[in-house]
């Protein structure tokens, strides 16, 4: 198909490419081929003037969608697309459905819910009844197959825009937690379509650079995996605690320029005992399962499994089932390749970083990890990553990690008051915050007030990092501490109760421009905290209930009320 020279050029060029770049190029060529087959122009024009406007709008929780949006913008440039990147949380429905080229990148969070900051715009968009004709769009949906409603938000957005009459340029991509490669490939297909679609006649033809010129563009893995050595694994919970929370210290093999608020992706390996059991049950000693997700079972995988196990009657509800449950019920011979097809690579698990570089140095990261242990399907279950860190990585041995930046969860200037609200291990980033403030205090002589609301079960047994907080207060960087210990008295006290109890002081902080940070449980705590702030606006500012809710939303839009919940 190729001339010897072409082939040699390609091979030479390929040798310079990283894996994501190769994937991106595969999509790029596929896109070019699609254009040609639709009667489009052959090779893209060589003009480098960006002329096609496009908007990249993201719905992000942890920052992945946002990061992808910026990557997409950079990737679009060589195609002559002048893309802007916008956060859906900052937009109105009209902003989104108005005519133009639209690339939507949308994360689904937990059980099919939109990112917390985007709840309003998502709801408004779903309720919208106007027309979106004149809009050309494509949706890149991010999700996690371990959850039931995989990519639900992206799917809903894709269908809604279609229903509103917008033009779907390309089938949506539903990307799992290892989204980088598929997203790279998909964008390679989609961007040329944007370049072509809706292009006003008077504009020059969509342009793209020579394929080889794009070589420097894609690099989604914005931070690479690095090796880390487990330096310390100490229990933070008291000897009589009902829980078990660990303080994990990692020494990194390279500098990692993390900021307070960032998270660290940990690449866990499965429990060898579990792997051995799976191998035995599938009579496949060669199965490479250490770094595969052997919990999540997708419908596709189930169909594949049913082919290997003819007597297998697929259970209706897969929700709580892991492969070990299925296989122990139906031991079935599988090949190593079957296992490859049945499972996805182990997704990394993100932990909020509990240290600041200013204190820990560029090659050390602290994490706060609660090993997940429970019983299900008659078996003891252990959280893959949490128990990997807590139980299986010996001190001094290595593991792989990667920085996961969390741009929304950042400290303000050193003199701005902060209110930190964390339950359980959700208090981790606040240790990083206060370490940073310690550093800032040394530099500036003073720091803004810092108020910490901490929720846990027992004051005596579960007061994570109690001595650290005491030291922060002594140093002047923690000015107010409010503990909500739910099991210490007959009346269960949670952080929201403490927020209300100290409402006047909290609102004073807000008046002084305080930034509010909420970290921890997404299901119960985060909504309760939001609600408590709305109640403070009612009680202390005389706002109506709806105005108070708006006031909290206003803080969110101003990025003064941010969540890192899970």
């Amino acid at each position, binding site marked *: 198909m190729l001339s010897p020279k072409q082939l040699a050029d390609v091979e030479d060029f390929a040798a310079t490419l990283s894996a994501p770049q190769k994937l991106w190029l595969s999509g790029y060529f596929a896109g070019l081929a699609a254009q040609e087959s639709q009667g489009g122009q052959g090779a893209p024009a060589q003009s480098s003037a960006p002329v096609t406007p496009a908007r990249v709008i993201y719905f992000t929780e942890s920052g992945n969608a946002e990061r992808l949006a910026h990557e997409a913008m950079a990737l679009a440039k060589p195609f002559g697309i002048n893309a802007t990147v916008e956060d859906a949380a900052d937009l109105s429905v009209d902003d989104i459905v108005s005519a133009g080229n639209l690339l939507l990148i949308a994360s689904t969070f937990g059980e099919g819910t939109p990112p917390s900051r985007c709840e309003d715009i998502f709801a408004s968009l779903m309720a919208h009844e106007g027309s979106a004709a004149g809009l050309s769009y494509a949706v890149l949906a991010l999700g996690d197959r371990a959850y039931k409603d995989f990519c639900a938000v992206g799917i809903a957005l894709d269908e809604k825009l279609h229903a509103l009459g917008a033009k779907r340029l390309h089938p949506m991509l539903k990307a799992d937690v290892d989204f980088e490669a598929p997203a790279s490939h998909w964008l390679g297909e989609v961007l040329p379509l944007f370049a072509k679609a809706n292009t006003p006649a008077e504009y020059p033809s969509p342009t793209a650079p020579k394929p080889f010129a794009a070589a420097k563009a894609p690099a989604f893995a914005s931070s690479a995996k690095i090796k880390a050595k487990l330096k310390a694994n*100490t229990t*933070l919970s*008291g*000897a009589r605690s009902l829980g078990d929370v660990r303080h994990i210290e990692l020494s990194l093999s390279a500098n990692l320029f993390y900021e307070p608020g960032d998270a660290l992706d940990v690449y866990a390996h499965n429990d060898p005992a579990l792997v051995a059991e799976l191998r035995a049950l599938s009579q496949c000693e060669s199965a490479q399962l250490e770094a595969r997700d052997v919990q999540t079972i997708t419908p596709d995988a189930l169909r594949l499994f049913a082919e290997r196990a003819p007597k297998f009657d697929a259970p209706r509800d897969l929700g709580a089932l892991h492969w070990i449950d299925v296989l122990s019920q139906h031991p079935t011979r599988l090949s190593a390749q079957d296992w490859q097809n049945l499972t996805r690579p182990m997704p990394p698990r993100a932990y909020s970083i509990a240290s600041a570089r200013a204190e820990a140095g560029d090659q050390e990261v602290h994490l706060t990890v609660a090993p997940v242990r429970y019983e299900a399907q008659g078996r003891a279950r252990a959280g893959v990553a949490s128990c990997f860190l807590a139980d299986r990585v010996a001190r001094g041995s290595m593991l792989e990690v990667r920085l996961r930046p969390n741009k929304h969860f950042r400290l303000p200037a050193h003199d701005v008051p902060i209110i930190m609200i964390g339950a359980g291990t959700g208090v981790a980033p606040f240790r990083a915050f206060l370490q940073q403030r310690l550093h800032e205090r040394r530099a500036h002589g003073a720091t803004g007030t810092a108020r910490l609301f901490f929720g846990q079960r027992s004051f005596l047994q579960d007061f994570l990092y109690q001595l650290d907080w*005491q030291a922060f207060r002594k140093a002047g960087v923690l000015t107010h501490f409010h503990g909500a210990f739910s099991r*210490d008295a007959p009346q269960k006290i949670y952080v929201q109760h403490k927020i209300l109890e100290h409402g006047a002081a909290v609102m004073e902080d807000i008046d002084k421009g305080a930034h509010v940070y909420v970290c921890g449980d997404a299901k119960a705590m985060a909504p309760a905290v939001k609600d408590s702030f709305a109640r403070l606006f009612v009680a202390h500012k005389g706002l109506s209930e709806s105005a108070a809710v708006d006031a909290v939303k206003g803080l969110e839009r101003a990025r003064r009320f941010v969540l890192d919940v899970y």
Partner: protein
Amino acid sequence: MNEDHHRDAAVPARSPNEGIKQNSEGLRGTLAHALPDELTGALSDDDGILVKFHGMYLQDDRDERAGRMRRRLDKAYAFMIRLRLPGGVCSPAQWQTLNAIADAYGNGTMRLTTRQTFQFHGIIKHNLKATLKTIDGALLDTLAACGDVNRTVMAAPDPERSALHKAAYELAKRLSDAFLPQTGAYREIWLDGEKIIHTPDPLYGETYLPRKFKIGIAVPPYNDVDVFTQDLGFVALSEAGGKKGAALKGWNVLVGGGMGTTHGDSETHPRLGSVLGACAPDAALAFARAVITVQRDYGNRTVRKLARTKYTIDRLGAPAFKQLVEERAGLALMPPQEVAFLHNRDRYETVKGDDGRLYKTLFVENGRLTAPMRAAMVRALPHVEEIRLTPNQNLTLVCRTAKDLALAEAALAEDFPAASRLRAAAMACVALPTCSLALAESERYLPTLITKLEGLLAAHGLEDKPITVRMTGCPNGCARPFVAEIGFVGRALGRYDMHLGGDASGARLARLYRQNLSEEEILALLAPLFERYARAGAKPSFGDFALEHAVF
């Protein structure tokens, strides 16, 4: 010089506690400010001293100490809260309230003390106010249950001589109320009471007493309150030698008893109260006030371990002390009456009082009421009219009728098992893990040792001999080991000094027999003594026998 505020110009620097008391603004200190601090379960050192006057000790769980710092946790600080319960009398309704506190805020247990009151352990700082408000709701308080003041006043719970008990109990209550610190601090800090302008305490002044002050009232022929161990003791004198139905005639007055010593400090020692004389029934309050003010003004304020009344009376001499007391009371003491005590134990048989009610004492090992025991008590309460805490860490139920008592006993039987006479007469202080003074185990260890002693005694057919065994984890002497027939005083983990030869009525000090003994050594030393005691016909009491025959 104002006699009431006598100060010896030659005394060296006062003990630091004196300054803390003086600067406390009527026991307030910085408590109101410290309580809302949720970052620590502790108090400042000064507040830690002041909070005792409010009836609580800051402690930490010593079992947990090791490793907490590595876990980035502060010590497991929690409070012991002690009630002021003169005479140890409480109503079933009050019991209910206190019982609920153990679950809501405490560690699930209630502790009956050697001074007839309740203690809760494991109450964290953030629950103190709620606990004290609950106690206040039951018309009870904790003020002056600890600290350098007159503590809760003991009174023999004697069931048979109801008239004398009534007199003893009423005196206990009067004394306890009369000598309460007059400060608004308690209501202000714990009960959200209004802030009252501080004025010096009319009785105690700004520095209160040099040390704790204990009063006990005995009703012969029983010395269950261990009247000889009290700073101030009253012994009920009655007509007809204390027969049933007898009325009160007056009180013998004893001064200067006390148990506390310090290991290795020969200046400290246990002491039995000196009988100063006797007084009329209605003169007790005046004499008590006089004794307290003499101790206030003459007690040692430079060396705390020499500050108890016993050292003051030793220093002044009993005649001089007596003269000061008489001057201040404006009354002369009469000659004391000879009184004979039978013993200082509790009696477990059902007793009918001369008020017609039925009295049943339940054995509570070391005073520790566990959750099942508390639950059983709650089931029994509907049939109970009154509850008395005994000086031996036990409970006396007062029932109107035999049917009531039967119902109450049925509710309790399973969770209050009977014990051997040895066990039923034994006492131990709390010690580890909560008491900060403890050098050795006490409450958690004595039951094991008793089991082994039971074996030794049974081997010689002595299982029915009532011998008082008492143990404390330190030489402070809360379980009054220095007047026991066999007293164990902790020196270090697993090591005890053994004292022998107290008499059965608590009227004689035991003598130090051997120091620093392991359990093995204790048993090896007692076995031959028991054997010889058995061979001697197990007479007279073991304390008497040991004093005579053991080689000290």
